[in-house]
């Protein structure tokens, strides 16, 4: 009785084992075929099939790994380059935005910094010259821009005379800039007399604010 049992056992072990080994061998054949398609050296297949199969397999595997590594490296490089590019673009955009902010700020300063005068006078005060030098710098840097130079007066005095006085103030400022070297054709003067006060008050503080020349970028 035990002998039969051992024989059964052996069969149970051997048969599946044979089955398994034969299936593995089939797989090897498939990969061999794949490698052959890519770059399998023909000599290895012809001379010693058993040994050559292993060597070819080995070589194919190495080549495949190398190719994959190269591909990976390439992909990584591309990704790295893309990221660099993005960074560069972002930096450029940031730089441009900063430049634009600076330009806006400079333009805003050009338009908010007014030049002030004494009563019934179109004479440029010393502090006005510093302000005008800043405006001249902006005009030099923005050579394609033109400006409107507005002349204003306070409410005292009479209206028609104040238009003439406002005109005189605007011309005074324009002449200063022309003397520095700004082209006269880039500057247009307009007098509003007492028509457009910034401060409607009836006191010296308001009047001083209204006696001004104001720049507007065209």
């Amino acid at each position, binding site marked *: 009785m035990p002998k039969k049992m051992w024989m059964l056992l052996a069969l149970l072990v051997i048969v599946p084992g044979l089955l398994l080994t034969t299936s593995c061998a089939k797989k090897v054949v498939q990969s061999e075929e794949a490698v052959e398609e890519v770059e399998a050296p023909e000599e290895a297949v012809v001379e010693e099939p058993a040994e050559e199969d292993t060597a070819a397999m080995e070589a194919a595997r190495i080549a495949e790994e190398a190719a994959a590594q190269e591909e990976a490296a390439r992909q990584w490089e591309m990704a790295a380059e893309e990221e660099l590019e993005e960074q560069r673009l972002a930096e450029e955009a940031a730089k441009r935005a900063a430049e634009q902010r600076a330009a806006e700020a400079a333009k805003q300063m050009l338009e908010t910094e007014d030049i002030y005068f004494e009563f*019934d006078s179109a004479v440029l005060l010393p502090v006005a010259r510093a302000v005008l030098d800043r405006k001249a710098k902006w005009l030099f840097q923005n050579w394609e821009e033109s400006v409107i130079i507005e002349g204003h007066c306070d409410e*005292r*005095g*009479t*209206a*028609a*005379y104040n*238009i*003439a*006085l406002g*005109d*005189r103030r605007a*011309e005074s400022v324009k*002449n200063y800039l022309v003397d520095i070297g700004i082209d006269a054709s880039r500057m*247009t*003067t*307009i*007098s509003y007399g007492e*028509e*457009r006060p910034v401060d409607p008050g009836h006191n010296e503080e308001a009047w001083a604010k209204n006696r001004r020349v104001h720049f507007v970028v065209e």
Partner: protein
Amino acid sequence: MPLSSNRSFRRRIRPAGAGLPGWILCVLLALLFVQPVCAEEAVEYIDIRNPFLRKIPTAVPLFKNVSGGERGGMLSRRLADILAQTLAFTGYFEILDRQAFLADPRNPAVLGANIRFRNWTTIGAELLITGTVRLSGDMLETELRLFDSFKEDLIIGKRYKGVEADHVRMIRRFCGDIMLHLTGDRGVFESRIAFVSASGDKKEIYTCDFDGGGPAAVTFKNSISRYPAWSSDAAYLAFTSYQKGKPDLYIQRLADKKEIVVDRRGFQITPAWVPGKFQLAAAMSFSGDQEIYLLTGEGKIINRLTKSRGIDVSPTWSPDGKLLAFVSRRSGTPQIYIKDMASERVRRLTFEGRYNTEPSWSPKGDRIAYSSQQDGRLDIHTIDVEGRNPMRLTQNQGDNESPSWSPDGSLIAFSSTREGPSRIYVMTAFGTDQRRLLTLPGEQMDPKWSPNATEN
């Protein structure tokens, strides 16, 4: 002759021993001889040296409704009232209150033959105006008579016929006849006043009747328009407007509202037409300096009138167009100068005050009105063309600016902030009878009185 009679008198009186009474008697006798000469001179109703010193007491009773009916009755009252107000506007007349009248208003005597002049002289009326109103359908016929009640004389009698709608024109025509008789000038009744009305930050040009009636807009530019000026035939108005973004000169033909624009670089302001010509002076700054130029009525520059660095603005012509007054800062402060067009000589007119601007030459030719700033306030002054006899017309009444003479030189329109917002006022040339001309929403300024050539 008087001397010899005095001597004979003295001989008679002396023996009586009374020397002084004799002298008095002589003087009285001399006066007797002088008086009859006075009585033969023409009666002067209005003293041209100061015509507003004494107003003529004038009675304007209700007119007689000849055709009867209610409409006629209302019109009789209305015409009498309009006539009274129109005369009162001139400042020459004191219109008496109808409550004081002695005559029966229900049956007014109209013809000289029927008038009981004592009714009028008793209440002090020196002038009496009677009227009749005959209304048939739309047609109105009115007879108007001006009497000297003390002399019991008819001075003027006129009959006017037309459509009822023209009744104001008829009254104004008669007032012109009265003024022509009393002063030699037809007065202001056919004239208009241009001015600026400001609402928010917009300013538009308007015109109204001489008494402020019927104001109407001339510009609708939704911008700032100022400094209107009438041509001599009152057919054109020149003015400055910011319609195109800067102060340009517009010349508008009022009949069809066609406009010519002078829009050189810089400003074009304060136009002033040359009397009797289709030309105007204006201040322009296209050269970089502020000067006064002469232009054609179409806006073409003829030549430059001022040649001085610095501000030159606000021209005004003498009535014969031979002299030009204007504002210049050539001596350091704004002052008024006069240029002789023929000799091109310029002399300074104002020496009092540090800020004299807005000159306006009287159509009579003898005086120039202007505004002067002293202690931060603006006031109207007049001065004769030689620069003598300055007269201040406003004081302690806010800021008073931009004077403009009536065409007969008897009244001055100006703007004032005496009641708060800037409004147009009228006063006599001597500064009396200051009253507001009209009230519109917002503020009014820049009055300019037209010549008498307008059609009402």
